[in-house]
């Protein structure tokens, strides 16, 4: 396509402006995390566009035993640990159950409209059924536990793991496992020895994708955890102080920590993100 030079420059300019606009909020939280108290507090009425005296005080504050400016006791170490534990276990549950189900659906057309029931499940606002789940969790003594939260994460992200893995399995020629079965392999044998090794990459990227979703949850953790198993987003929302109000600096520091895994993994698996987020509408 022939383009005049000024057109090219204009387009590039547009891209730069849009990118800067979209980058600014991220820039703001990163710099906020490194600003000392007088620069992040809103009371001064002066805006610091970049940290004049960069410091790691905010990080120190969230990891110290008791925040000086806040009534909240306890450090952010526990919520970070909690977020990791429940996200990883939730991901394992969704992936193990999802991989089997996806294979059954892809190869044996099992389950009838199960895939669509899963999509439907994804559309329901969790808040609409969270009260009975809370009741059920209290009854089973699963409120504020790692297994209670992991289990619900596994269910909530199951639609994604099933649909993602289904598209991966659909891509693997079915002649391969059929040949293995003809050669005397059992159904399960064909699945583990022939298909699984080929789907390794797909499983890894689906797992990262599901992990990001679990890591990002706020509402479910807010309702189903109390003290011991609060996750990072819930901890951020609770970093308040009676004296200073919202603790921007420490919140930003913890927020920054929370951003690292999803942003890193997300950019790593962006090709698979497309497939996951469209339930496989776009192949490869």
């Amino acid at each position: 396509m022939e383009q005049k030079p000024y057109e090219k420059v204009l387009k590039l300019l547009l891209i730069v402006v849009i990118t800067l606009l979209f980058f600014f909020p991220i820039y703001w939280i990163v710099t906020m995390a490194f600003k000392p108290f007088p620069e992040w507090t809103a009371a001064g009425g002066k805006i610091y566009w970049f940290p004049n005296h960069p410091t790691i005080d905010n990080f120190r504050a969230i990891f110290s035993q008791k925040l000086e400016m806040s009534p909240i006791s306890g450090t952010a170490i526990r919520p970070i640990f909690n977020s990791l534990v429940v996200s990883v276990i939730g991901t394992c549950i969704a992936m193990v159950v999802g991989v089997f189900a996806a294979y059954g659906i892809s190869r044996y057309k099992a389950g009838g409209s199960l895939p669509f029931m899963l999509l439907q499940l994804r559309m329901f606002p969790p808040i609409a059924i969270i009260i009975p789940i809370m009741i059920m969790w209290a009854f089973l003594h699963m409120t504020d536990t790692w297994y209670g939260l992991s289990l619900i994460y596994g269910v909530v992200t199951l639609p994604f793991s099933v649909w993602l893995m289904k598209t991966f399995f659909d891509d693997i020629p079915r002649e391969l496992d059929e040949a293995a079965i003809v050669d005397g392999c059992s159904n399960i044998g064909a699945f583990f020895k022939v298909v699984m090794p080929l789907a390794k990459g797909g499983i890894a990227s689906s797992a990262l994708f599901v992990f990001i979703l679990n890591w990002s949850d706020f509402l479910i953790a807010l309702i189903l955890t109390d003290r011991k198993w609060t996750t990072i987003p819930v901890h951020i929302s609770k970093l308040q102080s009676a004296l200073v109000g919202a603790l921007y600096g420490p919140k930003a520091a913890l927020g920054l920590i929370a951003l690292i895994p999803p942003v890193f993994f997300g950019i790593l698996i962006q090709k698979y993100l497309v497939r996951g987020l469209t339930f496989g509408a776009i192949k490869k």
Partner: protein
Amino acid sequence: MDAARFGFLMILPALIMLLFIVIFPLLASIYLSLSKWSPLTGGGTRWFQAYQFWGWLSNYWNIIRDPDFLMALLRTFIIVIVVVPVEFFIGLVLAFLFRESFPGKKIFHSILLMPMMVVPAVAGFIFYMLFQGQGPVNEALSKLFFHEVSVLWLQGNISAMIAIMIADIWQWSPFMFLILLSGIMSLPEDQINAALILGASGWQRLRMVILPLMKPVIVISLIFRGMEAVKIFDSIWLMTSGGPGTATESISVYMYKHGFKYLKWSWVAAGGVIVLIIITLISMQALKPIKEREEQSA
């Protein structure tokens, strides 16, 4: 093992999970919604004794006349029909700009994808900071217009809604960009070139060739964004908690407040059943394109 049985065994764990997590809560929701039970009136956790506070359809009858509930539904609807098209438009423009190569394309691409990876609660907190009375948004607007701007964004009914929508557009336009770009990139090059040879202008190529070819991708992206936007909670909760008053309550925020601040559980259960019915009706229509695609490929 015969094939049918093996297939069934493979999906069995998923089925059990679904039954466990969907069927019971659904039945419990319906049961609770028909009573007037709440943890305050009904004694702690003895929800199963809700029959002692039986109220038939009174919750339903009252909630559909509750202006706050209706406004929350309407507001959620407004948010969806504003943000989804705007996100689509921004995503489409970006996708077209990224069709050609230019210096630093990879870096720009990665930066533009970042917002959608940001934890939504953190995004809510970021925009809470940005929209403060003395925050950077007002400061930037002041510099832009050479005039002191000091809007109390999150304290005004309409400005708070605008702030929430901007936060959502920031976070999810990159999603549209990602999907639409991969849609454009997978188009058959020769059809576009054929249109070019036939003398089609840029706009004609877009309208007559590119967009029709991209239709499946566009439909999916709109459905997906729409169904996620309906659930909007995190950013609103972190930015305004539904305030000022109830001016920015989405349906999720409304239900959270009534369930966990006012402990009106049977009320919320009734609201939940109504929302589930509405969403089911919408989704049966919305999921049709995906269903058709599956049936074609099967």
